[in-house]
Every structure is written in structure tokens, then in C-alpha cells.
């Protein structure tokens, strides 16, 4: 039995991921979770059918998909990754059990291919989704400007950072 992880260097035949995008989770009480999600720092972007799409302030039109449970218990339904090209999506379609969905009706559009790992976990690949425009500066609730930390021996940050002049 293989118990040490085998190195598997990248090659062009592999499906090329660009970045991670969103996760799918099913909740017994989605509305109760949505109150938590707002407090946690998500923004509701859209609703479609029984799904609620939450976003942050990054390029992804949504980073968390909330759906009601189908079993009476919480369910994790995998993460979605943006692939580099349409060819990568086509490669994924050739894997056993792959399913394809058109996302034209959702924020950013695109296409989604869903896969099942050998242990039964889901993984999804997305391509053709229009990214969001991002703010020029990270929103921070109270901190106006950070810059480098002032260390005991080296105070590289000059002047005031929090007090409005």
C-alpha cells in the first residue's frame, strides 16, 4: 500500500488550474447561516432557485454558495477552481463521471464541470466567468493606512497612521 506521497511534477497534459474560486455548502437552516455569513464579512450577491451566492471584494463573482440541506444534516459539496483555458475544461470532461453545466444565468456567467474524487468528494472547474472589478485598495474597517510596522530599533513608518489630520 502506498503511504508516502509520490511526486507528480506538472506537465501540459494535466488540467491547469489558475486559482481557487468558491465552495458549495448545504445548511439545515440557510437563513440562520446567512445572518452569520453577513457578520463574518460576506456580501450577498445573488439568489437563484434555492441557492444564495455570497462574495467578498475579490475578483470572484461569488466565493461561497449556500444551499439547503437535502439530508437534514450539513453537507459539504466541494470547491471550485478556475481553469486556465477552455481546453482544460474539455480535458476534465473526459474524466469518469464528469458533468457539465452552463452558468450563463449566474453572476459572471461561465461554464462548470463537476468531478468526483475517488473518496466521493466533489471538485468543480469553472471557465469563461467574467471576473469582478476589484477596489484599488483593500477595504479595512478602521485602519486608514498601515505601512510597515514600527519595530523597537527601526521606526520605518513616519507620522501618524490613524489620526485624521
Amino acid at each position: 500500500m502506498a503511504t508516502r506521497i509520490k511526486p507528480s511534477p506538472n506537465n501540459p497534459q494535466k488540467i491547469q488550474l489558475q486559482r481557487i474560486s468558491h465552495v458549495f455548502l448545504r445548511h439545515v437552516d440557510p437563513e440562520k447561516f446567512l445572518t452569520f455569513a453577513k457578520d463574518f464579512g460576506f456580501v450577498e450577491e445573488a439568489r437563484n432557485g434555492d441557492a444564495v451566492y455570497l462574495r467578498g471584494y475579490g475578483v470572484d463573482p461569488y466565493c461561497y454558495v449556500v444551499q439547503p440541506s437535502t439530508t437534514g444534516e450539513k453537507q459539504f459539496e466541494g470547491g471550485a477552481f478556475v481553469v486556465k483555458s477552455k481546453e482544460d475544461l474539455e480535458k476534465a470532461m473526459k474524466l469518469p463521471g464528469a458533468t457539465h453545466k452552463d452558468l450563463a444565468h449566474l453572476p459572471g456567467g461561465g461554464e462548470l464541470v463537476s468531478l468526483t474524487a475517488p473518496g466521493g468528494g466533489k471538485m468543480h472547474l469553472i471557465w469563461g466567468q467574467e471576473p469582478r472589478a476589484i477596489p484599488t485598495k483593500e477595504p479595512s474597517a478602521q485602519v486608514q493606512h498601515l505601512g510597515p510596522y514600527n519595530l523597537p530599533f527601526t521606526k520605518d513608518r513616519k507620522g501618524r497612521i490613524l489620526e485624521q489630520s
Partner: protein
Amino acid sequence: MVHKLGHYGYISDAFDQDLAFYLDNFNLTPSDILYEPSMPELDVLAFLHIDLGSEFSDHHTLFMQRAAPGQKMVMHHCSFEVADFDTQLIGHQWLADKGYTSVWGVGRHILGSQIFDYWKDTSGFKIEHYADGDVVNEKTPTSRQAAGPDTLSIWGPPLPADFVKAS
């Protein structure tokens, strides 16, 4: 506000087959591997990053932990990025004031270096705020070491006893 999804991870009862699936079909590669201290040939946790060649990417976007004998597959947590340490502490106090359940944090991880803060959502899923994580590229060597509480944080509250076990 959160910026984006950073990573998620799960405990797999088909660890070797699942890892082979991710490593052989995709440009995912281990940043850090942990092995069982009593069985040095048994890898039990892998932090995978997206291999973008010379371009840097987050230390891990997916991690997988080997299930204990008899344990079923279960999601461990999802993690979302916030701007900075100050925002994390503001968020921690905000969630605490609302009466939500803190799981572990605020602290700083060793593998990936993120400042972390884990919470239990209203459904019982673990969810993390992180900031200031490492980025890696093809020149960053894969590291392999024994698993244990000392590999998890450089500072922060004590590790909760059940942290590594379930969602």
C-alpha cells in the same frame, strides 16, 4: 469584509487515492507534508498549492488529512482572506460580541504562516479568517516533517483537543 476564498480541506478515508487524483490530474503539488510521528513512512496530511511555475501562488488552496481508522470523509474547514491583522482582531471581537462560537484563534500558523482565526458557523461547519499568508512557486522546496501540535502554530491560544478531528 472578506476578500476571497483561500483554501479548504477535508479528512479523507481514501487519502492515497484522493491525493493521486488531485496530483496526477491537476497542477496541484505539495508545499508541506506531515507524517505520523510513530510511523515515519505514513503521510497523514498534505498542503497543496497550485503550481503556476515561476508565478507565486498561495501556500495551499487544498489540504487533505488521512482519516483515522474507521473515520468517514468529513470537511475540515474553509478559509477566507481578510486585509490584515487589525481587521482580524476587529472581526474576532465583532463575532465574539455577537455570541458566535470561537474554535481557535487568533494565532499564527507555521506551515503557510497565516494569522488564523477559526469559528464555528450556525450549522456547525468550521470557517476561518486568515491574513498575511505565504506565497510559493516552483523554486520553493516541498517540506516533510512529523505531525504534532508544534507544527501548527507559533503563537496563539492552546490547540483545542478536537481541532484536527472533525468539521
